[in-house]
């Protein structure tokens, strides 16, 4: 498991809320992504059917997960792909390093991979004297600025054009200042083409791995993924073990859901299906292909029937784009690899509640995420589950760190609450006292924080209960 620096979520959120540029950039981009998704899925009935299908396909795959992974492994080996299993991110990092060392390689070109972010691979390789270069334009920008991605799909979207112009000008030697997007793109192209040409090893993620044929399917728009997986002599593909699907025929609906949800595209520029390493007689393509399959807590998530649906996620990022909280704080505030709604349920399950359970508090439970999720993950239910388990001392709980939030004051408060609401007399007397005295909520502890940005609720002189008693109920 990755050792994260302790994330101070409250502090992160405060800082993000005060960064007006960040909020402006994030909101503008999310607005575009939401509108594009809506335009590509205009028919409510059709998208509903498609989501039902996506949900069924991923559930089917999970229902036979170990068998499919065995089949995938067998097919890959037949196809000349070497398969490595990693229980932890540290193990996966060492597997990459070992492959690099076995070739005496000192540099790596990388296509976009969220699993590599989860592994914090770049930092690990750098410590071991290896340069890992991000080649996706967004990832390239944030790597120049020593940042982490802020969004699963558009990693540098928290920066606007002017900020990126400045980063290019300052961080790339001999680069004149330009705010022209085409020129900025051309600058990156020139640098990266040279790197593709020279690279010994290329690394990529995997969007879907097909057990039936052993095919690794990658979607992208830029072509850097195709470069990374075709030019260098060695290709390393990283995947979480939940990425496996059963059949090639499962791909068309899943691809439609992924590209439509992620960027509002009917299809990406490239859908790359890699099945074998370079065969005898072929003139290019990597001679060696490695597939690293990462667990990192996923098999634990798999063991819980309700939490298992977390593994249906296809990393489209649309729950981020639609989330009112994400829109207001951006991705960095979350402090973990996966921001937004999916991050609120995924990180706590992988890193444990004590470390990341706080993320589940950052939700208004508005259900937007569940309404747009292409595979119908019930994210709000799982957020509630994480919140509950944070207080639960139930020994049957499967979540690491459950009950970490339990404390005497809260336990007592709820006990009193329970009593008040189970004895009508206490309830009535209590309400009477409150309404007569007009007691306002005391400005202490969590109540102080709560009322800092909100109007303090005032108690009405008469409770709803009393009003109903006197006036009856109007049936309209």
């Amino acid at each position, binding site marked *: 498991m990755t050792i994260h620096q302790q994330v101070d979520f409250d502090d992160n959120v405060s800082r993000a809320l005060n960064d007006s540029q960040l909020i402006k950039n994030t909101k503008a981009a999310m607005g*575009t992504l939401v509108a594009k998704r809506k335009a590509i899925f205009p028919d409510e009935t*059709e998208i509903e059917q498609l989501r039902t*299908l996506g949900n*069924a396909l991923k*559930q089917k795959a999970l*229902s036979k*997960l*170990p068998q499919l*992974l*065995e089949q995938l492994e067998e097919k890959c080996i037949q196809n000349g792909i070497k398969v490595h*299993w990693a229980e932890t991110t540290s193990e996966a990092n*060492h597997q990459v390093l070992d492959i690099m060392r076995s070739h005496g390689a000192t540099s790596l070109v990388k296509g976009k991979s969220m699993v590599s972010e989860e592994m914090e691979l770049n930092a690990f390789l750098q410590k071991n004297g290896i340069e890992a270069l991000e080649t996706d*334009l*967004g990832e390239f*920008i944030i790597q120049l600025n020593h940042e982490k991605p802020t969004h699963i799909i*558009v990693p*540098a*979207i928290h920066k*606007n*054009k002017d900020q990126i112009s400045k980063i290019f000008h300052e961080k790339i030697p001999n680069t004149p200042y330009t705010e022209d*997007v*085409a020129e*900025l*793109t*051309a600058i*990156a192209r020139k640098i990266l*083409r040279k790197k593709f040409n020279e690279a010994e090893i290329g690394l990529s993620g995997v969007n879907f791995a097909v057990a*039936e*044929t052993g*095919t690794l399917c990658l979607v992208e728009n*830029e*072509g*850097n993924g*195709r*470069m990374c997986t075709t*030019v260098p002599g060695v290709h390393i593909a990283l995947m979480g073990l939940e990425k496996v699907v059963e059949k*090639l*025929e499962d*791909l*068309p609906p899943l*691809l439609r859901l992924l590209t439509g949800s992620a960027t509002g595209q*009917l*299809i990406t*520029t*490239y*859908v790359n*299906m*890699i*099945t074998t390493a370079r*065969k005898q*007689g*072929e*003139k*290019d*393509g990597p001679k060696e292909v490695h597939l690293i399959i990462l*667990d990192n807590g996923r*098999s634990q998530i*798999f*063991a819980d*029937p309700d939490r298992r649906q977390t593994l249906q996620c296809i990393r489209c990022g649309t729950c981020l784009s639609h989330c009112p909280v994400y829109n207001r704080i951006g991705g960095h505030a979350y402090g973990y690899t996966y921001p937004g709604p999916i991050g609120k349920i995924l990180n706590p399950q992988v890193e444990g509640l004590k470390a990341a359970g706080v993320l589940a508090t950052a939700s208004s439970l508005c259900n937007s995420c569940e309404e747009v999720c292409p595979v119908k993950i019930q994210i709000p239910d799982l957020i509630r589950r994480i919140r509950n388990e944070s207080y639960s001392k139930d020994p049957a709980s499967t979540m690491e760190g459950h009950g970490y939030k339990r404390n005497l004051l809260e336990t007592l408060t709820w006990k009193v609450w329970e009593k008040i609401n189970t004895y009508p007399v206490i309830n009535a007397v209590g309400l009477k006292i409150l309404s007569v005295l007009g007691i306002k909520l005391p400005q202490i502890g969590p109540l102080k924080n709560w009322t800092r940005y909100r109007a303090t609720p005032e108690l009405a002189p008469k409770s709803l209960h009393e009003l109903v008693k006197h006036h009856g109920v109007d049936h309209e």
Partner: protein
Amino acid sequence: MSEGSRERIFSRLHAASRQTSTPDSQPPGLPILEYSRKEKIEKLKTLMEAMRTEVYICSVKNWENNLAEILRQRNVKSLLYAPQTDIGQALENYWENASGQALQLIPYENDIEQFKETVFNVDAGITSAAGAIAETGALILWPSEKEPRLMSIVPSIHIAVLKADTIHNTLLDAMQKENWPERIPTNIVLVSGPSKTADIEMTLAFGVHGPKALIVLILED
């Protein structure tokens, strides 16, 4: 190291999956679409042009003339091609007889290890498309021993030659009719346009890594 991890991962997964039931029957798949031959060509052309692809409908008899004109307009000086394919043969025949055009035809004959500089410096690459998908507007590239993978991604201009009869209604159609699960090659790529990105302020920019231009010649009988 890996072996022990593999065993432990699988033992956890197998233990967990013993408690699961198989999900109910699968809901209906994507809607089945049937386009006429003409509609398929039109739909493909419209969708790919919307993604800034240049699409030309040519005659199978003299498409080389169209190609020559396109290359002239774009001032293409060198063209990477696959000599052992039908397209490669046609190009050799045509340019042998063509006079007055300064085009260097470069055959992809060596392994990439000896050929990288050429591939990275050539003006354009020409390949076949094994088929296409009308519904979403994409070519199906099916690289082979004769027609290597890098021809369609490294050069700044990619020209693809597609026979009109090989356009499928949908991706699923292509997979089923062409029996992909049995025949799957080293690599298949679906291509819907030139390389692009929207990573800076969601502004579209073309030609970020791969081809800056994609030109499709659809051959009609």
